[in-house]
């Protein structure tokens, strides 16, 4: 008994020591390079955003930020690795609508809880979702599109970039709003699905602005609306869903930074501040806007705003995904 209590005392001592060491470490954080896990392939939309922002953040923090692309299982492989990393601020993750919201319903065996196993750092940027159709789709605006899709749903083919992808989940939202079930044609990634739309092999799809703008400008596909509150300067002629008459379709593939659960608060604050600074930087803003990204205003930034975004997004996507029956 006595031995045990002494042992406990020793343990407590160690704990205090460790905590104070941790605090000291947090104060002069960062002292070595930081790894930012990007759960998608190099060169993809999330990767590009991560690289633009991390470049500026590393200047502020005075340490290099190394990007590690850990791909697989719709980004959940990378998110799982980040969740299991040491919570010291030296491993952070560029999470995404898929990894930190839609995954909950898509993967019942998910190794992590997006809202409980991570510390939010802040929202980075979103890529708005557009409602797109093939070049000769017989509708001139969103109203006609909605009417046509409702009337001909069983004849229409919808393309998406694979179960769990952004184009898949966001079009589930569109279909549930229109109350239609067209035939879904799965493709491996946004490249092949866009190819099929350009070739006219499928009728419509939902996709991120980065992939769609060149085709819209080239006149090879039609864009009916953008699922954001305001018009985007990249395709300025495309109306918002609110203007075009389907205000419920609000969709943006958001990207946000997270740290593993238990990362000290001072470390998180330093990271949040560095991110905030990056999002205010003229150069960063210009590059993000060129991609068609949606940069969050001050009210949507920071840890608390991201925490509530994750909760609301899980609540938004889970019922739609569960109703579609797409869960493995």
């Amino acid at each position, binding site marked *: 008994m006595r031995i045990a209590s002494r042992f406990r005392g020793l343990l407590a001592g160690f704990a205090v020591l460790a905590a104070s060491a941790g605090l000291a470490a947090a104060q002069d954080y960062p002292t070595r390079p930081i790894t930012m896990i990007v759960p998608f*392939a*190099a*060169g*993809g939309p999330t*990767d*590009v955003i991560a*690289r*633009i922002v991390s470049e500026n953040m590393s200047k502020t923090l005075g340490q290099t930020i190394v*990007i*590690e*692309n*850990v*791909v*697989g*299982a719709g980004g959940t*492989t990378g998110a*799982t690795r980040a969740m299991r990393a040491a919570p010291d601020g030296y491993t952070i993750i560029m999470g995404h609508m898929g990894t930190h919201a839609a995954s909950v319903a*898509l993967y019942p*065996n998910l*190794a992590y809880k997006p809202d409980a196993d991570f510390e939010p750092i802040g929202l980075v940027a979103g890529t708005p979702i557009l409602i797109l159709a093939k070049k000769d789709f017989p509708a001139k605006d969103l109203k006609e599109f909605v009417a046509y899709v409702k009337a001909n749903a069983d004849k229409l*083919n919808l393309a998406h970039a*694979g*179960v*769990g992808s952004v184009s898949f989940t966001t079009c589930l939202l569109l279909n549930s709003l229109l109350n239609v079930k067209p*035939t*879904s*044609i*799965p*493709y*491996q*990634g946004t*490249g*092949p699905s*866009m*190819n*099929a739309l*350009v*070739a006219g*092999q*499928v009728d419509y799809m939902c996709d991120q602005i*980065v992939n769609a*703008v*060149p*085709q819209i*400008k*080239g*006149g*090879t596909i039609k864009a009916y609306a953008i699922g954001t509150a305001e018009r985007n300067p990249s395709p300025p002629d495309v109306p918002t869903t609110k203007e075009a008459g389907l205000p419920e379709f609000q969709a943006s593939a958001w990207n946000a930074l997270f740290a593993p659960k238990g990362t000290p608060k001072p470390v998180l604050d330093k990271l949040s501040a560095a991110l905030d600074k990056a999002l205010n930087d003229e150069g960063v803003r210009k*590059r993000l806007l*060129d*991609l068609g990204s949606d940069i969050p205003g001050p009210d949507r930034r920071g840890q608390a705003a991201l925490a509530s975004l994750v909760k609301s997004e899980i609540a938004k996507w889970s019922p739609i995904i569960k109703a579609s*029956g*797409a*869960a*493995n």
Partner: protein
Amino acid sequence: MYELFGNLAYGLDVVIDLVPWTFSLFGATFTIPVPVNILLCLLGALVGTLIGVLPGIGPIATIAMLLPITFGLPPVGALIMLAGIYYGAMYGGSTTAILVNIPGEAASVVTTLDGFQMAKQGRAGPALSIAAIGSFFAGCVATLVIAAAAAPLTSIALLFGPAEYFSLMVLGLIFAVVLASGSILKALAMIVLGLLLSMVGSDLETGASRMAFNLPELADGIGFVVVAMGVFGFAEILRNLEHTQDRTLVQSKVTGLMPTKKDLVDSTPAILRGTILGSALGILPGGGTVIAAFAAYTLEKKLSKYPKKFGTGVIEGVAAPESANNAASQTSFIPLLTLGIPPNAVMALMVGAMTIHGIVPGPQVMTKQPDLFWGMIASMWIGNMMLVVINLPLVGIWVRLLRVPYRHLYPMILIFCVIGVYSVNNSPVDVIMTAVFAIVGYWLMKHNFEPAPMLLGFVLGPLMEENLRRAMLIARGDPTVFVTRPISAGLLALALALLVISVLPMIRKRRDEVFVE
């Protein structure tokens, strides 16, 4: 025609563009013009070759690793360098295929068949040289094809819907049967095994996990590198350790480095045919380069006066697929350059590189960024020339590698393979799986099953399945779609004809044997 040369000249101008570089030395300031883009092209081709030569690191892994390095460069230079890395790595992949029987990527699987046999006979030098010469020629022709006909060819690629792709994959699998040198039955068994292995992972349509045994590592399927390293590289090492005599024979027999006159005469028509096939098939997104290499090999075997010798170290068996896959890898830029749609994983990385540099790839790149478009095309030609310049002298070094005592060589190959496999996904499980495939591959080798048809089945399987399901979904379950669409019907007819030609003689022969008994 005039316009074409004007454009190419403009492209060359972009590549040769001299950038004044000012530096001070001993207090004085000097300004010298530096052809930055050419240097970047050379650097890309060199780095690509060197990394591609490491077994297990193919072009995708190479570009993914080196992509960040190019972020600090001007966009045109960065893309020229990336393109250089791409075809450099494609080329490097065939070096390992010939020397140590390890295909660096799917398109060089077929190069192992005759290339490695040539190396075993001490003819690695001629095999490597012919691969370099064939690739160079094919690259030059494909560059002209892109420059002259990129836009009209794009519309052909768009004609290919799911039904057409499915039929093309069927044709591809028939190639796998034809190229088998041993028993047809065993080849079929291997193709089916390859198809089954390719089914592991998430179901395309429902996302449900198939044959993954609840292992998260299998959720995305088994990687090509894992299978290729296992059944080719590791299994080959196991087999070599068993027959130590074979190796000493190889080492003593290394003869001339350059191809003989006969080699050149034999490979010229093969290179020409391979180039044409490759240029045509490369336009198709997806398995274009792989199918091109197999198709070229099959064609040579069918046209050859000595088809039985294929697989025992025939130079045409190296020349044709190497030309074809290089031509195809070049023309696979067409959908990217004209539509802005990446046809394969490497091109997807290139799109990423473009967007990072603020270039939005799309139908308007050609008109809005002519320096990029024509610069890249011209750089391909220069890059191919650089590859020859880099690789012909290297042939001697590679061949000398074979003289290294095997007890020193094989641990090195193993280490590089393990690093290569690990680096693709940073996953230790992949390394363990490679070891499992090594044992499987060794068993197969012992029982005279050829791994190449299995690998082809494995590569084409997902494309075949996806397109079959897409075609059926779009046709609402009507299977006649494959024969009512003309291109699809044509491809299926070709597949059937090929099957009949290759199977008939065997049936006849077997009947003869039966009668003899």
